[in-house]
């Protein structure tokens, strides 16, 4: 009995160690970015780089804001990403419900198409998409970009949400119906609250995808005042991989913050949502 308990403790310690190692693996690039963002140029050129800058400076942040319209680009990214996230859940939720609850041949085909669509490379669609958007005057428009992000994230959002809907027991809806609730009342009062973690997780996925997206924004937006953050980050790069490393690190650090903050704020809901999506009935 004692030996068994010892084995269990050792296994648990091993798990924690593995988890710690994984966390460190994930954290290291971020910590390095943090460190680089506060280093003066001479420390960036040191053969013995240190984690903690000897003479930490805010000069890189000042240079970042002086040289590039970072705040404006962040606002543009935020508008496009938030718009895409909201639209994605608004559009995908009812569709996911239909796909999950009505298992017709059409629904199966739609699910298959969703999976296949994930394999399309961007370069395959960019020129037709550009021409299409130009025809409806949506090139160089944050609205057009938001629409593209919505379409791009929709298949995966739909796939995610379908899983979450399936995790909600149909018996609950049947019970509500027996109690006299109509279809809309059942969806609003019973299904939607149970789906909320999944909806939040899906919105977050759509937000992060759009926030980090680079190629569409590069090609579709021409006016400097509409450029998004990932596009502005490339302005710190020269030909053949040369970079203004300090300001680039400072800008990249600022670009990662909204995602981190968002995760921190709603991570409980996401965890709940993911677990709910993982349960099979």
């Amino acid at each position, binding site marked *: 009995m004692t030996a068994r308990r010892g084995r269990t403790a050792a296994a648990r310690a091993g798990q924690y160690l593995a988890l710690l190692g994984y966390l460190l693996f994930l954290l290291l690039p971020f910590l390095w970015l943090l460190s680089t963002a506060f280093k003066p140029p001479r420390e960036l*050129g040191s*053969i013995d780089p240190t984690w903690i800058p000897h003479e930490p400076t805010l000069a890189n942040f000042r240079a970042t804001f002086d040289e590039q319209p970072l705040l404006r680009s962040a606002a543009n990214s935020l508008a496009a990403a938030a718009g895409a996230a909201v639209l994605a859940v608004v559009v995908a939720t009812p569709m996911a419900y239909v796909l999950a609850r009505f298992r017709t041949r059409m629904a199966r085909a739609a699910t298959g198409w969703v999976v296949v669509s994930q394999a399309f490379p961007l370069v395959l669609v960019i020129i037709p998409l550009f*021409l299409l958007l130009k025809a409806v005057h949506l*090139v160089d*428009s944050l609205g057009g970009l938001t629409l593209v992000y919505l379409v791009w994230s929709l298949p995966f959002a739909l796939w995610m949400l379908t899983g979450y809907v399936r995790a909600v027991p149909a018996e609950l809806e049947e019970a509500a119906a027996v109690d006299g609730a109509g279809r809309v009342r059942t969806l609003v009062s019973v299904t939607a609250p149970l789906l909320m973690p999944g909806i939040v997780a899906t919105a977050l996925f759509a937000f992060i995808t759009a926030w980090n997206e680079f190629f569409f924004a590069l090609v579709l937006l*021409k006016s*400097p005042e509409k450029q998004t953050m990932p596009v502005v980050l490339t302005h710190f*790069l*020269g030909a053949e991989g040369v970079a203004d490393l300090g300001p680039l690190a400072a800008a990249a650090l600022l670009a990662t913050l909204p995602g981190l903050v968002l995760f921190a704020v709603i991570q409980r809901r996401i965890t709940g949502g993911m677990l709910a999506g993982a349960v099979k009935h």
Partner: protein
Amino acid sequence: MRRRTFLGAAASLGVAAAPVLAGCSGGGKASGSRRPLRFQSLAWQAESVRANKALVAEWNRLHPRSPVEYVQGAWPTVHDQLLTAFEGGEAPDIIHDASDDLADFAYGGHLADLTGLLPDRLTADIPEHSWRTGTFGGRVYGVPFLQEPRVLIANRKLLRAASGVRVPTPEDPWSWEEFRAAAKELSREGGGGGDRDGRRDRDTDGNGRRYGVAWPLKEPVSATLNLALSTGGRLFHRRADGRAEIRFDAADQVVPRTVHDQVNVDGSAARTTLGMGGSDTLPGFFAGRYAMVPLGFSYRQQIVQQAPEGFAWTVLPAPTGSAHAQGVSPQTLSIAADCPRKEEAMAFVAFLLRPANMVRLALGDWMLPTGTAALRDPRLRVRKYGWATGTALAGTLHAAPAQSVRGYPEWKDKIATPGLQEYYSGAIGLAELRGRLVEDGNLVLARYQR
């Protein structure tokens, strides 16, 4: 029927939503006003961006009826971005790029022929060999304005301490043999703990080894081809029928063989830097692990910013052979074929490239101007930071032979880059490299020349 109605409704929704979404752009200019010409610049260093923006502002102040809007582009993405913009008919009016990126756009009809638009002053100011870099099929598609020779940045202390090494000058540069000998002389085997004066220093790697040279050859093709011009190597040759073909003759082999032997025979070049970019080698250079680093002229700015206090460095000309030349792909200014006001666009280009303005742009980018008048500016002829050495090399810079050849980018990416990387690391020999560059390479070119 119900389904058709649903699809129809969805389509109607899309059409109805379009104007609403278009309204989000906020980009509609007041009808009747002339839209500014868009100038997409690839300036990226703070000083350079400032110089470009100041010149645009100056132009707009002087020419309120022909405004120009500054648009920031980026080097790593310019090709894809322009390609899509050209295909969609939404390209910037005035385009900043590099001459080796122009061939496909020029032959594809996306760029305006500038031949009849160029003012005489500008035509006369830029030398013929520079014009060749922006000329395709006998027509001028890009005005070359900034260029960058490859130079040797050397640790002055180590160079001075090596008594058997002659310090080269632009008038009397090293031959490739001298360079190889100097790199050997500047190298130091492992095990030693101090320098020639017996002091322990950091001029070595962890094993006490110092290399004469560090070749940052993450992208080996343009460096190899441009330096090969110094020995008369061209690699790309035009046949009588105008078609390009690849040859890898003795003259083409001098530079690759030197690098290969420095790494694999002499041990005077660091193997680890072969996979690095130029910036990656700087910390080791500052620490004295490498005595010399062949870099683009503009890297001096990074060295000035990052070098430790008291670090003494100097700019030396790249080694030369019989031809005393070096290939370059200058930065260029072009006008889009779709630009509605090409004369105005050219007037702006001519303004930007007035000698005094060209000097401002050159200083901002730490590069050399192509214009002869700008090159005479005293600020570009000071010894500080090696400006004088670079300016003295300007006359030796010529169009890289490969840049006007269609199919070169594919040959570069698919054949030459992996081939040269393997050869430099010692994985394959010269015969294997030759087979790949020439036989596989000519197959690639053939597809573009049918």
